[in-house]
């Protein structure tokens, strides 16, 4: 929940604006109030902050020039892709600068022999696969927003998606990055070859939510498309039975490319939105297997048997690519579809050890009942990543607060079960406080060492991720003014 934290508000001077204009040109700079409003939030729309300026660089050099302006004057900047993030990672710093990477959207190189592509950060996730599909390849991370979200944003959030169970997350697929550090220096992290000598900087940069710099060029691994993909839908009388089937599939030593569960509310919403022809049931399991044809067929027979053993009363394998696409369309539309059955909703992103699933679902049910709220559940069951959707009506006084409270209590429950507060959406603005529930102060202080090595002035996406504002030279004691205050370009409200 957004706390009553004192807000540091930056006041950009005419001089700052002139420097930014020199960096990106007139057509790369937005300062008009109405246009700035486009950038006041990302996919987490209940947090809104107006930036002081938005820049739209076309090259890494322009990004450098902008960041140098920021570094020189200690002005906070937030980089932004398509703004689809769900944790407020691209929420502007009040009055600060937003660096939109939308114009850096070229696929620079495709190397099939070495199975990588080189892209700019503004390239849309799905466009990478489109570019290499004809040669039988694909880019594996597939967040539900993949038709609009950008690789730069995926890098910031270490995005996953339904297929990361088998294929891994964004970090698995990033070989190298060119990064503009918060000092304005451009460095290459990693290499297209494995194990570049030195620390694994791509490993720590990916998923750092824009707090360590701006990626301007990214080398991504691409994967050979499997010979056969089969998708199965199984209908159960309870989410728990679907969950048990997932455990049985894993115990049978299979690694499906996706294992998804939706509960009755989520099915109802998806049906209303895209008519995916899902069976009407309490727990719907979606299993996708891929690989060589004969292997997939053998394993799919085994999966069908496991479903029936757990009481599935309908087991259906998609018979065509269109049918398969429709199954996925329903699943990927589930978040937005919930808008059909509730005026407002909160999407959460907790993770638990898979075996805790039945217990946790029961607890969520009773917490929801106690709060007189409905919770729809959609989850990547294979890796224990839950997306509880807390439904509410903002028009009812006090209901939003109740819904937020419930969603945060669900996250705490995930941590109490040995899990995490976020599996793929990131901490951003939304879950800063929850991060402090998951990690102790020494853990957070250790992360801060990395932050300070990259960004000693704390200007790259400041006041995100970590539970409280920390300055790199911070010592416990009485209030010390932020350097921005001292410099006279910021005020505390």
């Amino acid at each position, binding site marked *: 929940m957004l706390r009553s934290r004192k807000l540091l508000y930056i006041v950009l001077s005419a001089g700052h604006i002139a420097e930014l204009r020199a960096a990106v040109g007139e057509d790369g700079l937005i300062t008009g109030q109405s246009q700035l409003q486009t950038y006041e939030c990302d996919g987490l729309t209940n947090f809104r902050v107006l930036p002081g300026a938005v820049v739209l660089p076309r090259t890494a050099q322009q990004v450098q020039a902008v960041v140098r302006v920021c570094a020189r004057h200690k002005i906070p900047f937030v980089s932004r892709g398509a703004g689809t993030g769900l944790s407020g990672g691209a929420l502007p710093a009040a009055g600060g600068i937003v660096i939109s990477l939308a114009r850096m959207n070229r696929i620079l190189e495709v190397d099939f022999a070495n199975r990588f592509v080189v892209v700019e950060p503004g390239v849309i996730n799905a466009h990478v696969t489109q570019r290499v599909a004809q040669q039988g390849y694909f880019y594996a991370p597939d967040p539900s927003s993949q038709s609009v979200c950008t690789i730069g944003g995926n890098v910031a959030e270490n995005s996953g998606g339904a297929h990361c169970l088998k294929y*891994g997350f964004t970090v698995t697929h990033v070989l190298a990055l060119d990064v503009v550090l918060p000092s304005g220096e451009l460095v290459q992290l990693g290499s297209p070859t494995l194990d570049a000598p030195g620390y694994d900087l791509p490993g720590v940069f990916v998923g750092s939510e824009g707090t360590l710099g701006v990626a301007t060029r990214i080398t991504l691994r691409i994967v050979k498309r499997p010979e056969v993909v089969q998708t199965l839908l199984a209908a159960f009388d309870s989410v728990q039975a679907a969950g048990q089937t997932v455990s049985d599939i894993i115990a049978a030593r299979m690694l499906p490319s996706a294992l998804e569960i939706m509960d009755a509310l989520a099915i109802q919403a998806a049906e209303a939105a895209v008519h995916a022809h899902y069976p009407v049931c309490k727990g719907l399991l979606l299993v996708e297997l891929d690989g060589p044809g004969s292997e997939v067929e053998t394993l799919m027979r085994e999966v069908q048997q496991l479903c029936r053993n757990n009481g599935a009363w309908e087991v259906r394998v998609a018979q065509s690519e269109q049918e398969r696409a429709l199954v996925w369309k329903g699943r990927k539309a589930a978040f937005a579809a919930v808008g059909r059955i509730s005026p407002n909703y909160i999407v959460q992103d907790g993770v638990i*050890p898979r075996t805790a699933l039945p217990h946790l679902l029961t607890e969520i049910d009773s917490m929801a009942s106690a709060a007189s709220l409905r919770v729809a559940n959609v989850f990547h069951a294979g890796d*224990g990543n839950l997306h509880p959707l807390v439904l509410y009506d903002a028009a009812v006084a006090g209901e939003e607060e109740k819904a937020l409270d419930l969603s945060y209590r669900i996250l705490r429950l995930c941590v109490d079960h040995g*899990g995490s507060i976020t599996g793929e959406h990131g901490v951003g603005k939304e879950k800063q406080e929850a991060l402090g529930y998951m990690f102790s102060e020494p853990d957070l202080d250790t992360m801060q060492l990395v932050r300070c090595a990259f960004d000693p002035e704390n200007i790259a996406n400041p006041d995100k991720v970590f539970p409280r504002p920390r300055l790199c030279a911070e010592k416990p004691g009485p209030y010390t003014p932020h350097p921005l205050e001292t410099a006279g370009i910021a005020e505390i409200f």
Partner: protein
Amino acid sequence: MSSPATLTLEQGLTHLASVVGPEHAHLRGETIVAAPGDKQQIAEILRFAQTNGLAVTPTGAATKLGWGNPVAPDIQLSLARLHSLHEHAWQDMTCTVEAGCSWAAMQSELARHGQMVALDPLWPECATVGGIVASNDSGALRLKFGGLRDLIIGMTVVLADGTIAKTGGKVVKNVAGYDLHKLMTGSFGTLAVIAEVNFRLHPVEEHARTWTVIAHDDAHQDAAVFVEPLRALMDSQMTPSCVQLRTSKQECALDIRIAAVPECLDEYAARIQGTFGKFAVTEAGEAVWQARQRLFDRSDVVVLKVSLLPSEVCPVSSELQQIAAADGLDIYAVAHANGLMTVALNSAPEAAIALIKRLRARIAGFGGSVIALQIPDELRGWVNVWGPNSGALALMREIKRRFDPGRILNPGRFVGNI
């Protein structure tokens, strides 16, 4: 003792013995060897070292202690007593293991539930989890399952100032906070002491077969003959667990390992035969996968870790064969299809230096690297074992400075003398 001058070796030993118990601390030459029994004792030792400016080298089984620049530690911090598999949540396919546990001991425990950490590092019988992680070792299985960065989901580390910190967690999917465990992996003990590691697990590959393709014709022993069929194999929809090319002056063989449900393995055999039609394809035993480790058998040879683009595996192997033939050198190479190659060179020092320079020049264009893992002492002053400095070295140094301002953890061992 490096500093301060007032602290004698005996005083240091006495103090550390009081921390870990007298039976777990002793002198080896000018070094105090101390084996802590828990994380708090690691923290105590590091605080003592930091206060007194003493260099610390964390060690497991010391199998790779010679990798990187030499360090003369004041304290050798042995993780030998921290050797338990703490937790194996087999239904969640994760485990938590202490750093001093040997790889084989961990795997044999995990195998009781048909699971494994999907990595085949060097010397698994003795090498420890901590040492393998700190040196980012990996083997042929990396082609299918990825490296340690893809298998580690969390870690507990002890910083130079004694802070005990957790990173990641015990679930596979987790983007909360920075992935410090990725920074620690391959950091050669220069940032913190790894105390515990959480892994994601995979099922043991129950049904697997290995085939060896041999360039049998005298005229075709050149690795270049495998360029096309290897490309076809990797571009196919087969998903081999391991693929390695073994080359020397006399030999050129390609090994392929595939795991699948038993009823499909014959089909793979036929597909492989089809891909490598003109070569002799025979079924082989698992022993061929020891080839990389055998390159380290002789301690007097130079062993290099060469990182290539996958498409360069055959061309570079072929060039090494040609250099061996032209210059009369004994060069053995084992290259995995992901581009990681191990090269053993038995030659006069001048020839070794020349080869390292030549390889570095050859692969610089595509961002490859050559690290001299095993190198005779007399060559050390002549070769930078890590290769040319990266453009990100300043950033790496700053990270080191933040984590270990007193430079007590393996000072000088890593890239750029970090």
